[in-house]
């Protein structure tokens, strides 16, 4: 018995490693630490499939190790000729039927989950939130058609209810992925619209990635999902609805910045609730988590970004819009003060203590 335990040691090490690594990963990024309905459901499915498959692996390895030790050719056996077995009907039936049964056991929850995640029925109810998601090289646009508000890069959703996403792309195929809340779904160009839903359990700022190769800055096409309580969400919606795109900023520099913005940037970037844009909507830029999804949110970074965006996100379409350093400073001052809502990623961070 003891010898057997020794022989199975690799299996134990393997299982321990699995447990150990399952604890890894960042709270707001890892699919192994679900913070929403979809991710939770899918982790359960993964664990079921892993358990079944580990059973198969252990059986295979047990036979493998036994065979290797027992039947290895020893000295003096060079001329030994083993019995030439053709096969064994009952054994072969066993290792056909048992895997079929195991796979059927896995198929049931798989099909259930697949239909569950495609369930659009609750959407008919009044008051369910729809967000139109558009993937662009290399940023995300979020339009709330019922609330008539628009934003980019940071997707605000209330916790505890399903938010339905209607998804498409303006250029190449992207894939919208928030590992800790739900799985992913591609955004296709043209009329090929996809849908999925997000349901966050806890307030927090969650990391989103583009998961389909979409060009040079594919790895930099990050976004955030800001999950807030439903009261905060309502507040955020009304704050956003009340944005005055032409409001005059307080400082002189920001006032100049507004003018420069109107001259150089307005062609692509909307302030206010325009449903579409060539470039990201900047209505609530002052509240953003990151600049361009990747840089820390401060003025220096913003100026650097405006001056030379290609340095940070190669291949992005803002390349070539030349403004002077002074104008960039002013535009930065203008954009940073566009913080119309009390509900910000920071307030969420404060409440849950997450980065």
């Amino acid at each position, binding site marked *: 018995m003891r010898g057997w335990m020794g022989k199975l040691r690799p299996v134990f090490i393997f299982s321990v490693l699995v447990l150990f690594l399952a604890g890894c990963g960042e709270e707001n990024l890892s699919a192994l630490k679900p913070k929403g309905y979809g991710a939770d459901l899918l982790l359960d499915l993964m664990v079921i499939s892993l358990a079944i498959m580990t059973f198969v692996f252990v059986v295979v390895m047990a036979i493998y190790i036994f065979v290797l030790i027992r039947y290895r050719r020893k000295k003096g056996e060079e001329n030994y000729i083993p019995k030439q077995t053709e096969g064994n009907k009952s054994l072969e039936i066993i290792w*056909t039927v048992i895997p079929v049964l195991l*796979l059927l056991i896995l198929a049931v929850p798989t099909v259930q989950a697949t239909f569950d995640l495609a369930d659009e029925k609750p959407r008919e109810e009044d008051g369910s939130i729809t967000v139109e998601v558009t993937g662009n090289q290399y940023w995300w646009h979020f339009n709330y058609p019922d609330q008539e508000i628009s934003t980019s890069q940071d997707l605000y959703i209330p916790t505890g209810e399903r938010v339905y996403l209607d998804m498409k792309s303006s250029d190449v195929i992207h894939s919208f992925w928030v590992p800790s809340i739900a799985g992913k779904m591609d955004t296709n160009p043209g009329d090929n619209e996809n849908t999925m839903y997000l349901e966050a359990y806890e307030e927090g700022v969650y990391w989103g990635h583009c998961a389909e190769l979409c060009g040079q800055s594919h790895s930099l096409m990050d976004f955030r999902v800001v999950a807030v309580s439903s009261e905060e969400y309502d507040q955020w919606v009304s704050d956003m609805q009340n944005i005055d795109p032409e409001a005059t900023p307080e400082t002189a520099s920001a006032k100049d910045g507004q003018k420069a913005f109107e001259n150089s940037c307005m062609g692509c970037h909307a302030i206010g609730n325009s449903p579409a844009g060539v470039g990201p909507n900047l209505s609530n830029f002052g509240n953003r988590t990151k600049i361009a999804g990747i840089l820390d949110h401060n003025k220096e970074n913003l100026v650097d970004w405006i001056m030379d965006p290609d340095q940070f996100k190669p291949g992005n379409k803002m390349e070539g819009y030349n403004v002077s350093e002074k104008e960039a400073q002013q535009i930065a001052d203008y954009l940073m003060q566009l913080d119309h809502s009390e509900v910000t990623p920071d307030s969420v961070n404060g409440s849950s203590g997450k980065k």
Partner: protein
Amino acid sequence: MSNAIVQQRGIGAMIWDYITTVDHKKIAHLYLVAGGLFFLIGGLEALIIRIQLMQPDSNFISAGLYNEMITMHGTTMIFLAAMPLIFALMNAVVPLQIGARDVAFPFLNSLGFWLFLFGGLLLNVSWFTGGAPDAGWTNYAPLSSTSPGHGVDYYVMGLQIAGAGTLIGGINFLVTIINMRAPGMTYMRMPLFTWTTFITSVLILFAFPALTVGLFLMMFDRMFGSAFFDVTAGGNAIIWEHLFWIFGHPEVYILILPVFGAFSDIFSTFSKKRLFGYSAMVFATVLIGFLGFMVWAHHMFTVGLGPIANSIFAVSTMAIAVPTGIKIFNWLFTMWGGSIKLSVAMLWALGFIPTFTIGGMTGVMLGSAAADYQYHDTYFVVAHFHYVIVGGTVFGLFAAMHYWWPKMFGKVLNEKLGHLGFWPFFIGFHLTFFIQHFLGLMGMPRRYWTYFEGQGLATGNLISTIGAFLMAIGTLIFLYNVIYTAIKEPKASADPWDGRTLEWSLPSAPPFYNFKQTPLVRGLDPLWIEKMEGRKGITPAEPLGDIHMPNGSILPFLMSMGLFIAGFGFIYQVDNKLWFIAVAVGMGLFFASMFTRSFKDDLGYHIHKEDLIEKGDGKE
């Protein structure tokens, strides 16, 4: 023997000999060298990728170059390394295993190789002409159809030419195995490697046309202004994904089935036992090949096909695990009760079982459609397909090369160096890829040029990179072994492994006509049967007589070169219509060669009976 004579005649004569050869054994050498070279290039690209990902916020190479690296790594490894190396084995072994003197169409065999080589060269020329393809080896539209520069054009033309070569090769083996089996070699007496080659050839025949169609549409979209994949002009980008994966999924079985066959032969030989459940193994192979065409959409679970399609493809994908499982258990029970010899070939085969089982496990997990919403396009997928393609195909290629090296080159690869090379590769492989399952679940998508500090991904990536270098060391030891063996090792005997199948009845390496007399096959493992009955060689099926042999030809080389030149013309005519001259010259060369082949009689020659006797006893 013939090699030595050629060397005396000088290097020029040897090159001419190889360029014009239609001998399946020499074509195997060509496939092996070319495929090996591309394997090293692909490996170098992999190392560059791993260095870039070694630490967060890395800037070792630029984002654009990185996309070219991953695209070329995948494309090179699949089309220009794995497939040709598999063709090398098929060429070297299948005619010998079925008791044939060559393949059915020796001329086409040569044409297939040169098309592959020139296609591969064309693809790699792109590095020096302003940028390699950069839309991933899957080349999804519209990223690919709108990619600036000529990179993707090279992908389209290069793969079209190389793909034609593969298709020709596949048809050739299909006909060879159907028509050229020795008397008594019924289908159910064929060695497993021949069986898997047969099914693989069927897969090639049905899968490659889908790729050809896709590439053709892509070529017209990029070069001649059509809009098959352009949604703004009424096209549909998703069609590319379907066409690609209708080809692409069978393609992974094209890569894995032949090595399944090789493993079957190896397990059986080094356990000194008949393959356990032979008919079940054949049945499982056929079933895998058949189901392989029913599952392509599992690469597309997140495309938005809807829950019904996703569920159907999830279940059909899981179904493939059953015949694969049957194979694993049959291999285990082939060893059960046997007398296992740990040769290097067997060591690779033994390394394959746990590795491939893990790859199969994650395969079933990925097949679970909903869960794939998390796995898809992450490092989990990267880990999975390297577990099956490296853990399956590459381990299989190493095993098969060690096993059949004496039959290909007349010498047994040094066993000590073989063991020494196995361990760093095996350990390095698991270091590189095991951790990537977790990286994927921890939120790292595939094809990411970089990741950030604070995402918890740094340690895993560092481990992965260290593993990649260990694999490189293992590969270098193998290369050293090849050179060492060529210089130091003695000539191998006809049957160094106590083999069971027909190829081991021939000298190592076999004479250019293979069998002096066509053998008579009296059952599965024909050589083993003869040995058990105390005979030294195989019973011949015919009296000694003249052997009809085909002449060598330069035409396949010229035809492929014609397409290579025309390829450049097609790529650059977009910029300047004068390039149509290159198209005309290339296609002219191609059709002129074809015309010559069609209208000039080439009846081959005969080796006379008297010469065969003079050359000594082929049986040894």
